[in-house]
């Protein structure tokens, strides 16, 4: 059973890892002929990892040598382009995975019958005036990596009430988690993630506490005490993060059950008022949340769901 689940889980994790976002970056306050840059980037990556490319192919082409010598990446920041949105724009946080940046952009525009299909993620790059207190994490790889590892640990604590699975990793396996993201290497990343993100093994006995001596047993996402899920709403609302039980009355908790319980006013009529998006796709209402958390999580182990409102 575990082997079959392992192989199907790997397939879906690999699919999520292969998902990309088309980016359209515009330089703020620049009127030259080359102030736009297009790039296709993986969803699991971070903007800080893309800065060298963006610097070379956009900023260095636009600025003259003096301006280039004066600019400092610590002052740079990205803003979501909120043109045509009923909501205001926002500064992109450096510790957000690109998937979350895209999720925020997606939530800016309500779903409607007249929409013309997927659009690139439009960002505005500002070279001065970074709102430091809002950004919280500076655009250095060291800071983003530290944050990534903290998120990995927090997700583990959510699942099991301790971080022993992470702290028990060999140093090289823990490092492989971030290194896999930085180098775009799925197998390297799995040396960490494959050891700590549990498989969605349905037959696992529910809720019985697992004593520590059973550590060799394969963990099931359905046996976790809670699932690491963050739900995002548009218009500057704070993220929602609360305990999520993988099972309800002994049966797998479905996504719609979870959404009805968490956001009843938006999901009392199914998806008519709002739609849940993760990894760039609309999630089916009958999906098990434990399966989604095991197969569609970000590289740090968190499942990030964005709520897109539906227009009339």
């Amino acid at each position: 059973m575990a082997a079959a689940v392992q192989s199907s889980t790997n397939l879906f994790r690999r699919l999520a890892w292969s998902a990309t976002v088309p980016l359209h970056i515009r330089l703020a306050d620049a009127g030259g002929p080359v102030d736009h840059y297009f790039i296709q980037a993986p969803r699991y990556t971070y903007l800080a990892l893309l800065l060298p490319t963006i610097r070379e192919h956009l900023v260095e082409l636009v600025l003259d040598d003096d301006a280039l010598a004066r600019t400092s990446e610590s002052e740079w920041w990205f803003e979501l382009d909120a043109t045509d949105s009923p909501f205001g724009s926002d500064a992109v946080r450096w510790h957000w995975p690109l998937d979350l940046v895209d999720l925020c952009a997606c939530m800016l525009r309500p779903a409607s019958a007249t929409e013309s299909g997927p659009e690139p993620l439009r960002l505005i790059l500002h070279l001065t005036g970074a709102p430091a207190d809002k950004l919280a994490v500076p655009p250095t790889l060291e800071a983003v990596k530290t944050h990534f590892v903290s998120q990995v640990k927090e997700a583990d604590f959510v699942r099991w009430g301790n971080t022993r699975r992470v702290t028990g990793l060999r140093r090289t396996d823990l490092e492989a988690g971030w290194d896999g993201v930085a180098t775009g290497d799925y197998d390297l990343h799995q040396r960490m993630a494959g050891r700590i993100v549990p498989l969605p093994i349905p037959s696992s006995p529910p809720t019985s506490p697992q004593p520590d001596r059973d550590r060799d047993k394969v963990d099931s996402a359905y046996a976790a005490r809670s699932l690491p899920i963050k739900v995002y709403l548009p218009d500057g609302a704070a993220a929602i993060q609360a305990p999520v039980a993988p099972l309800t009355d002994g049966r797998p908790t479905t996504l719609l059950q979870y959404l009805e319980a968490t956001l009843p006013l938006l999901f009392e009529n199914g998806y008519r008022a709002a739609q849940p998006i993760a990894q760039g796709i609309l999630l089916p209402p009958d999906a098990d949340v434990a399966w989604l958390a095991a197969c569609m999580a970000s590289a740090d182990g968190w499942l990030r769901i964005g709520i897109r409102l539906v227009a009339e």
Partner: protein
Amino acid sequence: MSAVDVPPPAIPAATLAALDKYKAGHKDTKVVVLFKSIGSAPIMKNNVFKISANNKFHTVSAFLRKQLGLKAADPLFTYINGAFAPTPDDVVGNLYDCFQTGERLIVNYSNTQAWG
């Protein structure tokens, strides 16, 4: 830019009202935070405080710095349940809902990195 100017699709009033309600988050709720020092970090005389649940965690760090009389350049590392470092923009009420022990959110603090 579309060829024909179409007004952006409107969101139903009931949906916007629901969004406003959820945007209020943990409004008017306070949670109990217990600060615990690690290593050589100074110990606080009073280490239990009620903090608004809608605050971001960086507000808690700033409050803690003030209580400890730290300068902006002094290092301060914070952890939840002695296990992981929260993000500065985590909402205190969310951390409480997920990680409280005995109806208190335990925040460990240190002047050196403790659990990275």
